[in-house]
């Protein structure tokens, strides 16, 4: 450490109580140490754990091979990917027009308020939000009451404890998140692009399709990727709203810990889940160039 510390050249030049070269390291070491000790080390521990047998602790790769041979584990991954894909697509399709209306149709001085209102439930407890949807979708809840009393359905429809409920809960959360990011994106767009398009004879529809949409596409991709990552790793929403009718990956992981205390298998499944996210990241990395302002 001392040899590399000597290279820590200070930009400001002034007298100081601490030796010059030690100060920068004294500043960054606590945070680095915390990350190494409580983020990197746990990850290594999880890696080791995933390669041991639940009974006896002998070295084995069976926790990983189980994932590929046991169809119910495999199915959880398929479910997770399907739900995440559906949620991401629906959320983007719902949020984009909404963000566009907030940015273009709402008068400037009301925009801040309109946006704040649109994301207010975003700040409430995640667990409570899922529970609220359970209330709405319950067998004799508000939606079913409206459906039966309007005569559309004679019997209440099974809405809670289905994939539909999980997707609804997720979409509710991610529409708010994506509205925030897409709104910011639309506001950053300089109005001169639109003026230029109009000067060149493009109508509003053409301007939108050929100028505004392509320019906001990178922002949409970043938002969609964020949705993907947060959605595929979430345990709360599928557990509360989907129930145990079909399992998603995070539910499968938690089940290994809760019911069976099988840390090695839970570790292996977590690592597989993380690998899938990493692959997804690499697959769309070229659309995810986050440029610094």
């Amino acid at each position, binding site marked *: 450490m001392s040899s590399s510390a000597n290279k820590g050249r200070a930009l400001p030049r002034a007298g100081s109580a*601490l030796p010059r070269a030690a100060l*920068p390291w004294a500043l960054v070491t606590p945070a*680095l140490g915390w990350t190494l000790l409580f983020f990197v080390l746990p990850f290594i521990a*999880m890696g080791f754990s995933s390669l041991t047998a639940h009974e006896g602790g002998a070295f084995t790769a069976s926790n990983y091979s189980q994932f590929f041979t046991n169809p119910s584990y495999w199915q959880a991954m398929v479910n997770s990917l399907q739900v995440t894909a559906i949620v991401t697509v629906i959320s983007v399709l*719902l949020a984009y027009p909404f963000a566009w209306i907030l940015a273009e149709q709402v008068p400037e001085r009301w925009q801040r308020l309109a946006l704040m209102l649109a994301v207010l439930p975003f700040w409430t407890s995640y667990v409570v939000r899922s529970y609220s949807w359970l209330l709405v979708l319950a067998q004799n809840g508000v939606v079913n009451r409206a459906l039966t009393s309007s005569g559309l359905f004679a019997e209440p429809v099974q809405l809670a404890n289905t994939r539909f409920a999980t997707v609804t809960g997720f979409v509710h959360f991610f529409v708010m998140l994506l509205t925030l990011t897409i709104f910011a994106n639309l506001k950053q767009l300089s109005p001169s692009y639109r003026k230029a398009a109009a000067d060149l004879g493009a109508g509003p529809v053409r301007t939108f399709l050929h100028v505004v949409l392509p320019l906001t596409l990178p922002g949409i991709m970043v938002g969609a990727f964020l949705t993907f990552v947060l959605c595929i790793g979430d345990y709360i929403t599928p557990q509360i709203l989907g129930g145990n009718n079909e399992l998603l990956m995070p539910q499968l992981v938690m089940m290994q810990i809760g019911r069976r205390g099988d840390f090695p298998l839970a570790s292996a499944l977590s690592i597989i889940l993380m690998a899938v996210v990493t692959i997804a990241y690499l697959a769309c990395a070229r659309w995810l160039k986050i440029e610094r302002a």
Partner: protein
Amino acid sequence: MRKVVRIASWLYALAVYAFIFLPVVVLVLFSLQATSFPIPPFTGPSLRWYDAVLSDTRLTSALVNSLLVASISSLAAVTLGFLCAWGFARFVLPGSGLLRGLITLPLTVSYLIIGMGLLVLFNWAGVPKSLLAAGIGHVVINLPLCFAIIYSQMGNHQINIERAARDLGAPEWKVLLLITVPVMAPAIFAGFFLSMTFSWDEFVISFLLTRFGTTLPVEIWNLLRSGLNPKTNAVGSLVFAVSIVLVVLFELTLLRRRKA
């Protein structure tokens, strides 16, 4: 044509607002239910379930635990994040890009996996499940956030003020406390506030790392086992109210700063 777009926009926006607020309205409305099921028809208004929440010591002590964990872990995260951001912004360090990447890496990993890792590590090292363990996890998720916010706001123009202070003979700790911290106050505040809200709301890490005295989201989760219950509505509405107050306070402070 223009008018059609306008009307369609209004209808669409109203529909999305309705979708966004539907669960919140149902939650709050049926927290005032007088009978024991939070489903239509509405029989209230009554405050009996709020009474039940406030006299439930498990919930009130979980609330205190949550506030404790949120404030202490956020303070730790913002302190570590600030010092680290200052170090990287003001000094040339070898491997700086790589190290900054390491600090922000936890942002890309889901809470479930961070919690799993800590559970395996603590289990192996013999650290018992406790609020402290959950707090450690909360610092892991919030430290990169605080670092990123504060680091991105450390511009070069602030260097000159610091330099002036040094030229006038201020020792390094005085520069830090009397110059850098006040100048960076908005970013520090934003980092602290965001950490507070994330920690206050965090479930899965606390669920994995605590056992008896636990945080509010975990205690609410335990309530869910009893099915739909107006008491859960009441505690959820209270949590919602606290979050709204925090967000409004945050907006007002930001607005005042911007005007000043």
